[in-house]
């Protein structure tokens, strides 16, 4: 066998081994938490209050996680998509768009604990929203918006120039072209982006410790629709510990008999949720891609 063939085999083997290693690590993480949550993970655990004396569940905390997720998405998806349209179709390569791109990268690389401190100063203190779901969602928006903008910009840039030219040559305006050709073709990419960022938001802890807070109303009354009442689960002003923050809290200062089990089970829920988000993104992305390109 010649030298080049030997090296070809070696290279293939190394890449294969790295791939297997990555899969094993992921499998080990999932398996560890699944095994640790056996006996604890149940519908009751997902819905009951943490304050119970026997084995407290994560009902309100899970609610908070989804509440903050939805609130953040309501803010970032429209703004991020509009920003992405601007960056992809209108901005070009001038000074201002380059400044925007630089800012996007910088914000994305700021540690999330720092974003949390910023949120504490601005939303919690200066704006007086105190520790609340809204403060948390705004802190998450700070670093999720640039990411969302970037992802939707990329989805739109991936639309072939041919399609734009075809539309423009038929006498459509630029906005008509964006609205009727570019956006529909970019939707699968944008939705994939939304779900992937959703996974990130769902798992975020550091930025929420100082903004959404470490507490939650003990008993949620879902018939209380007073949006200004910090005790109402529907109000953006209720303090809202999320699942990740709860895990951190249990592990650092939790007391009681079941702390270990509760933390591990919460972690299992978190891992499964994020995994589902990612699988969902893939499936929905490919379904939408097939539908919009008509290759069914």
């Amino acid at each position, binding site marked *: 066998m010649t030298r080049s063939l030997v090296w070809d085999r070696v290279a293939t083997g190394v890449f294969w081994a790295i791939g297997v290693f990555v899969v094993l690590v992921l499998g080990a993480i999932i398996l560890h938490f699944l095994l640790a949550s056996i006996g604890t993970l149940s519908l009751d655990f997902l819905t009951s209050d943490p304050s119970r004396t026997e084995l407290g569940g994560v009902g309100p905390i899970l609610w908070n996680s989804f509440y903050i997720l939805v609130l953040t998405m309501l803010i970032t998806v429209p703004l991020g998509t509009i920003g992405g349209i601007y960056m992809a179709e209108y901005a*070009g390569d001038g000074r201002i768009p380059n400044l925007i791109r630089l800012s996007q990268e910088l914000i994305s690389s700021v540690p999330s604990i720092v974003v949390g401190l910023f949120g504490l100063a601005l939303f919690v203190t200066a704006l007086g929203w105190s520790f609340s779901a809204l403060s948390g969602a705004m802190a998450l928006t700070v670093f999720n918006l640039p990411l969302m903008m970037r992802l939707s910009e990329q989805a739109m840039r991936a639309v*072939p120039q*041919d*399609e734009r*030219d*075809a*539309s*423009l*040559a*038929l*006498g*459509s*305006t630029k906005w*008509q072209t964006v609205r*009727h*050709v570019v956006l*529909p*073709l970019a939707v699968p990419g944008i939705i994939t982006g939304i779900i992937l960022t959703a996974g990130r938001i769902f798992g975020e802890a550091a930025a929420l410790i100082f903004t959404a807070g470490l507490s939650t109303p003990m008993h949620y009354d879902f018939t209380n629709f007073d949006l200004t009442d910090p005790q109402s689960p529907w109000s953006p002003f209720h303090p809202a510990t999320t699942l990740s923050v709860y895990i951190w809290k249990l592990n650092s200062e939790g007391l009681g008999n079941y702390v270990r089990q509760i933390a591990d089970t919460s972690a299992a829920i978190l891992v499964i949720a994020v995994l589902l988000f990612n699988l969902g993104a893939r499936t929905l992305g490919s379904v939408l891609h097939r539908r*919009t*390109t*008509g*290759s*069914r």
Partner: protein
Amino acid sequence: MTTEENVSIAEPPTTQVAPATPVAIRVAVRPEGAEQVVDNEVRIKVEDLNIYYGARRAVRGVTMDIAANAVTAFIGPSGCGKSTILRCFDRMNDLIPDARVEGKIVLNGEDIYAPGVLPVEVRRRVGLVFQRPNPFPMTIYDNVAYGPRRHGQSDKKALDQIVENSLRRAALWEEVKDDFRKKSGLALSGGQQQRMCIARTLATEPDVILMDEPASALDPISTLKIEDLIHELRQRYTIVIVTHNMQQASRVSQMTAFFTLGEDRAGYLVEYDQTAQIFTNPKQQLTEDYVSGRFG
């Protein structure tokens, strides 16, 4: 240029004295021979057209009149600027950031590069068929209805009529009449896609149809269908076609313009005459060398 003479321009064309205002162009009805010749009115008048990309001049001093209800072929070696000139006729070059156009292009008596003329308006009167079929990922119906819809036609019956007429004129109706409302444009064969793109252009009711090597990506049978279609369309439309294929130019066109690259790397018009003249009895040596296959 008078009604009796045809243009033939020797390098450098910029020294050419501006011809008298033309009223008609003598066009051979049958491309194979000039036995039957009629006078067509002028649809597009090009006056001393220069096209620049940044500081580089890509096209130099083109002056020509394009006859209504005739097919005019642009031939010449790669890079001689024939597509660039074609794309000026519907201001698609406006989309290239540093492209600049000097001179006049007069369509139906109006300079389409005059200040205040909107490219969108020009493109509604001048259709462009691209080299590669570029259907939108929508149904055939939605593809063809795209232009009229963007121009404000929303009446369903009117749209139905436009779509059917356009598909008939593009010689595609018989092949798709059963499923054109459901079938994706992408599910058609390459040749059918190109005819659908032509139907899409016809639906906007242009005066002029520009075709940029419309058959170069197609198989021979599809190519013949497109050529037959061009013959049909000449009755109603003014057609300008860029082609690499000299047989195609001689088959489909009544007038032929031969362009080549000058020593300054700018394309210019060498000779413009009835197609039969260009291919059998050209006045310029360069033309003769090109059509006889000695270069290019």
